[in-house]
């Protein structure tokens, strides 16, 4: 229903914008899309992907040659995968945009994706859109209903603001990627039943509106941005409530998923120093449980990413990053502070164009907790808009570590994509 409402809203806006401007300006439209076939096999001999994806996008604009008065985009995505049994038809981008004050203000309403941040792959401040974590290593961003404003205050300064009227959580990892939840019963009782998950996602009310703003300064040679977001956690805090069954010493467990409020303060930027571009990004997320005393509420956390992009003459383009995660631990039952749990990862990305048709890319992430993953990919352009890709995924490390639980998911995927 939410998708249908958004579609109707955006199509209505699009129609209104088109009618408003068609009297004195030419409407230019474009239709594009892509189709992709995928086949993936993992280390256990299981096909983890065997499907097809198709998307179709209609976009257009009215106004002058350089800066339009208004524009729109509507995208539909269809996917069918025999390996997972999933068949979906979803609305992708579906928005209308008005350009005001000679284009210095852009107001975009509808289902949309907004990117904030500077670093590669891991972006602590890029929190506006939830993600599809069905395959966690891909985690594609999901467009959501939003009003997004961007104002160019000066040639080197822009201000953005976003209002999200309805909360949409991230899609949880697919079954193959999940680790079994641990629901510890109270001592001295027997759990006779685990009830279906109670998902307490915030309703679309005025008090549950999500807001965010960002100011970016981009003078010559470097850029710097500061962001503030007032959101809900896109990944729920899971807990279990004890439900008496009526029988002595026997209880049922009620798993609950709660999405607590989150204040995120972030900074990011990049600077070109000769041959190297340095990038950095950091964010701190404050929850309603700063001391970690309430297990039903998420704890404060932070993430810092620093990296460098280094072009190797006649060689690959390298990106090296260090990622530091920190989260307040739950307090002890006596109320004693649990301190901060830290995690450090490194990420190395190498991209190399072998020739005009062949590209190599490899991503290696190593977690200092003793695990990691490697993702090499080879893509070949058969013809204009026709690309084949062979990608691998290798996870290593003991069970219980960040990537160790994904060892069984190691495998390879072949795909063929046609853009039109």
């Amino acid at each position, binding site marked *: 229903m939410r998708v249908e409402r958004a579609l109707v809203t955006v199509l209505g806006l699009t129609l209104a914008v088109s009618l408003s401007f068609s009297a004195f300006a030419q409407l230019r439209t474009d239709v594009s899309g892509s189709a992709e076939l995928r086949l993936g096999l993992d280390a256990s001999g299981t096909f983890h992907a065997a499907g097809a994806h198709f998307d179709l996008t209609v976009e257009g604009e009215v106004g002058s040659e*350089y800066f339009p008065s208004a524009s729109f985009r509507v995208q539909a995505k269809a996917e069918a995968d025999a390996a997972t049994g999933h068949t979906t038809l979803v609305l992708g981008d579906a928005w209308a945009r008005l350009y005001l004050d000679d284009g210095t203000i852009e107001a975009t309403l509808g289902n949309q*994706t907004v990117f904030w941040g500077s670093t590669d792959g891991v972006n602590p401040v890029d929190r506006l859109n939830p993600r599809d974590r069905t395959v966690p290593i891909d985690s594609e961003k999901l467009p959501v209903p939003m009003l997004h404003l961007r104002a160019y205050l000066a040639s080197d300064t822009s201000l953005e603001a976003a209002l999200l009227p309805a909360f949409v959580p991230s899609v949880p990892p697919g079954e193959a990627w999940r680790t079994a939840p641990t629901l510890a019963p109270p001592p001295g009782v027997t759990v006779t039943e685990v009830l279906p998950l109670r998902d307490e996602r915030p309703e679309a009310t005025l008090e549950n509106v999500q807001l965010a703003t960002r100011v970016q300064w981009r003078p010559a*040679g470097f850029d710097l941005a500061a962001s503030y977001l007032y959101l809900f956690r896109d990944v729920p805090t899971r807990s279990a409530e004890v439900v008496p069954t009526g029988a002595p010493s026997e209880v049922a467990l009620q798993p609950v998923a709660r999405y607590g409020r989150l204040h995120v303060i972030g900074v990011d930027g990049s600077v070109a120093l*000769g041959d190297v571009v340095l990038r950095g990004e950091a964010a701190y997320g404050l929850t309603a449980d700063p001391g970690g005393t309430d297990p039903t509420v998420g704890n404060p956390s932070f993430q810092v990413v620093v990296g460098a992009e280094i072009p190797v003459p006649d060689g690959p383009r390298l990106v090296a990053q260090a990622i530091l995660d920190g989260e307040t631990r739950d307090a002890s039952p006596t109320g004693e502070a649990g301190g901060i749990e830290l995690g450090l990862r490194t990420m190395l990305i190498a991209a190399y164009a072998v020739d*005009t048709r062949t590209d190599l890319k490899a991503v290696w992430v190593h977690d200092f907790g003793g695990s990691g993953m490697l993702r090499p990919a080879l893509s070949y352009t058969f013809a204009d*808009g026709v690309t084949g890709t062979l990608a691998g995924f290798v996870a290593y490390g003991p069970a219980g570590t960040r990537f160790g639980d994904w060892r069984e998911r190691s495998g390879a995927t072949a795909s063929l994509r046609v*853009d*039109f």
Partner: protein
Amino acid sequence: MNRTVPPARPRVRPLRRRPMLATGLVTVLALLCAPATAQRYADAEELMAAVEALPEPETLQATLQMTLTGASGQTLTREMRTWARGDQMRVLKFTAPADIAGSGFLSIDDGTVSETMVYLPALDRVRRVAGGQRGESFFGSDFSYEDLGGIDPADYRHVLLEVRDGPVYILEASALPEAGSVYDRLVLEVPEATLIPTRVTYYRGGQAVKELTVREVTEVGGYLLPLERRMETLERGTFTVIRQSDLTLDETLPDELFSERFLRR
């Protein structure tokens, strides 16, 4: 020398103009009064001064078709639209094929500000490109970012190697260390009639690595412009041809065109 796409650097002269009348007179005088190899310019300094002195259009808009040919002979095609103001500012946006359509490239170098940014629509992200990436391939083609930026005469020390029939000047340009070029030296063939280099061989590590061939030098709006440029990577045997059409010269372009805002649009 890249004359059809105005380069990032302010001192480069991507588009050269010489008055038609003057060109005609020079040609007639050359035919009537001089032997085939008679030359107007005695040395490299004189020649480069003449090249530098040529006027150029204030602005340029053009549609570019870029054809990439692999060693096997198979081709890929990219189409783009470009807007440029002098040598200082240039925006380039891909219109085809579909998988890269919308990608854009902004280059600004006005003597005090020098930066290059790339816009990738799939990520809706504008990225700063480092100076060292000037040597990288431009969207998979045989042209690098530096090649597209053109040749700044101030970055090279010039020596006249020989003068061939035409006359055609054979010029060696050795890169100055402070220029930061990815090439050691260039060898240019410059016909006196147009002063537009028709062939440039790029050397690195003492080896010829690329060769630029300029074709179809045509008068457009009072300017002599090469409509086709072919860059070959010699070791691989691959080449890229950039052909320009729909040229509009000297039309006022708004400042906002050379901004992140237009890149994202």
